[in-house]
């Protein structure tokens, strides 16, 4: 009955989480569990696709803040893309764009990961 979903898809080292619906204090634990699972599997390159997200509150922002340190310590990152203007405004209001890469489309977001992981032997530069 919850109006929030996460759809995960893995592609080499990169895991994408496509979030949909409302991300608030009620649904934030769903996203939290999904990210925790990635970290448990040793996957630290995380792309969050906001294309279908309609709402975010500080409880949703808190999920990203709660993991970012551990992820970066492990050489990973959270990058974000496809936010509608309403969602972006909340991130922007709090200065989050200085801390996270937030880009328009999926392709740019992927490229940003490949750039950063080049020196770790990226074999995924075909496209």
């Amino acid at each position, binding site marked *: 009955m919850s109006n929030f979903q996460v759809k995960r898809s893995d592609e080499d080292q990169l895991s994408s989480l496509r979030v949909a619906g*409302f991300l608030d*204090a*009620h649904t934030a634990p769903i996203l939290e569990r999904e990210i925790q699972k990635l970290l448990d599997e040793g996957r630290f390159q995380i792309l969050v696709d906001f294309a279908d997200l309609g709402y975010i509150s*500080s409880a949703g922002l808190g999920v990203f*803040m*709660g993991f*970012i340190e551990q992820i970066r310590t492990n050489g990973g990152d959270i990058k974000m893309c496809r936010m509608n203007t309403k969602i972006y405004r*909340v991130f922007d209001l*709090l*200065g989050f764009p200085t801390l996270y890469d937030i880009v328009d489309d999926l392709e740019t977001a992927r490229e940003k990961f490949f750039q950063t992981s080049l020196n770790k032997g990226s074999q995924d530069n075909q496209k």
Partner: protein
Amino acid sequence: MVKSKTEYKLRIPSQTENLELIRAFVGLVANKVGFSEDDIGKIELATDEACTNVIKHAYDPKDQKALDVAIQIDYQKFTVLVTDHGKGFHPDEIKIPDMKEYLAELRVGGLGIYLMRTLMDEVDYKIRPGLSNQVRMVKYFIDKDDSQLVQKRDRK
């Protein structure tokens, strides 16, 4: 368009699963009085943050009580009142974060009241522990950004 003084009240169980209903409630009333999509989004988010605080902090988790959201409308402003009957707190002791430091230190939490103050024109608390604790958030119909109201918005 707006009547002289109108009131809308919602009383619901203090549970996160009701946040969606709370947002729909304030959003529909804000839409009815003619706010822009942008302002409606701000009012919904500020109200969500105030209610999330009640749900998370006001009551003993095993003793969930009611949460009250009231909207008062007069000719010049839209006021949201969020009231709980829980333990209360000292709003003056809550440090509003400096976002530069906050982000540099990768802190978590503590953004709710900051957001409320940023999104609304006025935010103040009336705390009577055990009786009622109320946050009052105001949005004016005419954006008074470059008037004397700015000082209220910018207070720490």
